[in-house]
């Protein structure tokens, strides 16, 4: 028995958005940003997480998961390449921050572009030889890459091996706003800004040529190449952009956590982020955000049942995937062209 689409939140949301005029849309965006921005003040409500502090949970796992899931969604959802080693880019960003932060005078914001650049370079270097592979083969190679990065930092002296790197500096304060361990609101707002930037980037790209190329590659790669799409180039771009987002998340994570070690970058993280994408709805930005939010938040919310919480977490995954096999908010089956309006033919 299939129970599906009894409530179609996605189309409901889309219809509101499509019927709204420009001022209305601006208002919706601003109000949503404001409401999400106020989340750290909700710690006293029913949302409160026992044991872990609420605003810390909002930054990691919730915010970070959302950011990384959006990055992975470019690779898995938009261009259909299964990447099981996404944590590698997160690790590269984090270690760039840790090493440069402890050995040089550069602050987090100055290291951020360097970390992103390193992650992107790793994406290109890994992409050029491996993106000729498809499907399962690509998944295995990326899985290997994720493990290689972890094993290299585990066994190298420059990364202090299994001891990890401590005393990573916090980001410098913005005027009166200070980054503090006890109060992570500011971190949350920074993550939010990064998420907004990523959403903007993805939305921009999907309505134009790169988005079409990715979509064509995802649906039929051979046909895409025979219709003149430079498939390897666009696959590498997709991979690299995903890597960039992962790298940025890594830099911020290291600077927030103040300490990183190789055991934080295991295959589990890659799988969990992939689960967020699949759970929320592959290829749909909003689905991915909701999926990552729930999967990031739930384990901390139900921490009071201690040992049983992973069981509950697993059950939720299984039940939801049974009822909504395409994710909470599946990719929209549009009957509308992926092109910017205003270009009237």
């Amino acid at each position, binding site marked *: 028995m299939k129970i599906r689409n009894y409530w179609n939140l996605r189309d409901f949301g889309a219809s509101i958005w499509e019927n709204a005029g420009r001022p209305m849309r601006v208002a919706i965006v601003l109000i949503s940003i404001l409401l999400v921005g106020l989340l750290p003040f909700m710690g006293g409500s029913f949302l409160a997480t026992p044991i872990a502090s609420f605003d810390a949970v909002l930054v990691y796992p919730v915010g970070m998961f959302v950011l990384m899931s959006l990055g992975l969604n470019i690779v898995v959802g938009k261009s259909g390449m299964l990447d099981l080693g996404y944590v590698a880019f997160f690790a590269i960003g984090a270690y760039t921050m840790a090493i440069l932060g402890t050995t040089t005078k550069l602050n987090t914001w100055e290291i951020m572009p360097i970390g992103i650049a390193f992650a992107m370079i790793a994406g290109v270097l890994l992409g050029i030889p491996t993106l000729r592979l498809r499907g399962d083969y690509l998944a295995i190679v990326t899985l290997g890459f994720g493990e290689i990065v972890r094993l290299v930092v585990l066994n190298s002296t420059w990364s202090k091996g299994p001891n990890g790197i401590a005393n990573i500096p916090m980001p410098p304060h913005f005027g009166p706003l200070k980054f503090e361990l006890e109060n992570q609101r500011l971190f949350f707002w920074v993550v939010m800004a990064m998420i907004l930037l990523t959403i903007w*980037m993805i939305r921009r790209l999907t309505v134009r040529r790169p988005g079409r190329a990715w979509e064509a590659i995802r649906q039929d790669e051979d046909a*895409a190449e*025979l219709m*003149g*799409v430079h498939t390897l180039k666009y696959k590498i771009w997709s991979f690299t952009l995903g890597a960039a987002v992962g790298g940025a998340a890594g830099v911020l994570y290291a600077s927030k956590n103040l300490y990183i070690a190789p055991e934080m970058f295991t295959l589990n993280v890659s799988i969990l982020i992939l689960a967020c994408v699949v759970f929320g709805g592959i290829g749909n930005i909003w689905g991915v955000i909701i999926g990552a939010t729930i999967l990031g938040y739930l384990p901390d919310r139900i921490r009071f049942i201690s040992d049983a919480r992973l069981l509950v977490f697993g059950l939720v995954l299984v039940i939801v995937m049974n009822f909504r096999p395409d994710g909470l908010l599946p990719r929209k*089956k549009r*009957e509308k062209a992926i092109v910017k309006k205003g270009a009237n033919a």
Partner: protein
Amino acid sequence: MAKIGKTLLKLDNVTMKFGGVTALNGVNLEVKEGEILALIGPNGAGKTTVFNVITGVYKQTSGIVNFDGISLGNQKRYQVTALGVARTFQNIRLWGDMTALENVITATDVHKKSGLVGALFGLPRARREEAENRERAMEILRFIGIDEYSDRLAKNLPYGVQRRLEIARALGTSPKLVLLDEPAAGFNPAEKVELAATIKKVRDAGYTVLLIEHDMSLIMGISDRVVVLDFGTKIADDIPSVVQNDPRVIEAYLGVPADAS
């Protein structure tokens, strides 16, 4: 009737082997500008293999494929398309989750210069090219006569429209030569007549057409020349009425009459 011009595509002694199987055996083929050339032959004769060699899906074992003065031997598939060869597929291979219009727009991207950075920041050239693409794609859909379906997902389109959309998508790449792989497969007689008119229209618009087809009446009606393949070898190459009566062609299709042997 369009004027037939110089040689556009030339296959020179092309051989294609898969392990021990010789799919094409020293095939020579010339396609001239402005003509409709039909490629026929029994099942397994190597017709689609010819298409796959031209478009770079397979690399020929030996021989030269020359298109418009350029050897296609070392070109990648997308480069072959950019040079001006477009094809359709025997088994429809549209991008099902895209609309008809998007399918064609994606093909029109091949000659555009703007890339990822332009798209990201909405640079003027990227915006202009998006508008041009959209207009051109709409034009092609109208030309093929399926513009009313422009906003429908390709996978939800009726079969006949999908076949036509394949042609539209191929035209989207602004090719000089269009390769049509059994465009009338599964059509009823009325649809075939309509399709024949469309193919003629495509040729009259300045495209050169190389066509694989099984339906003899369709081929006899529209093609300027017919090439017959049998077991990877060319056995005839002439105007339709001559090919039709060629004893070797009849033999390949029907076998030798019992009393003749």
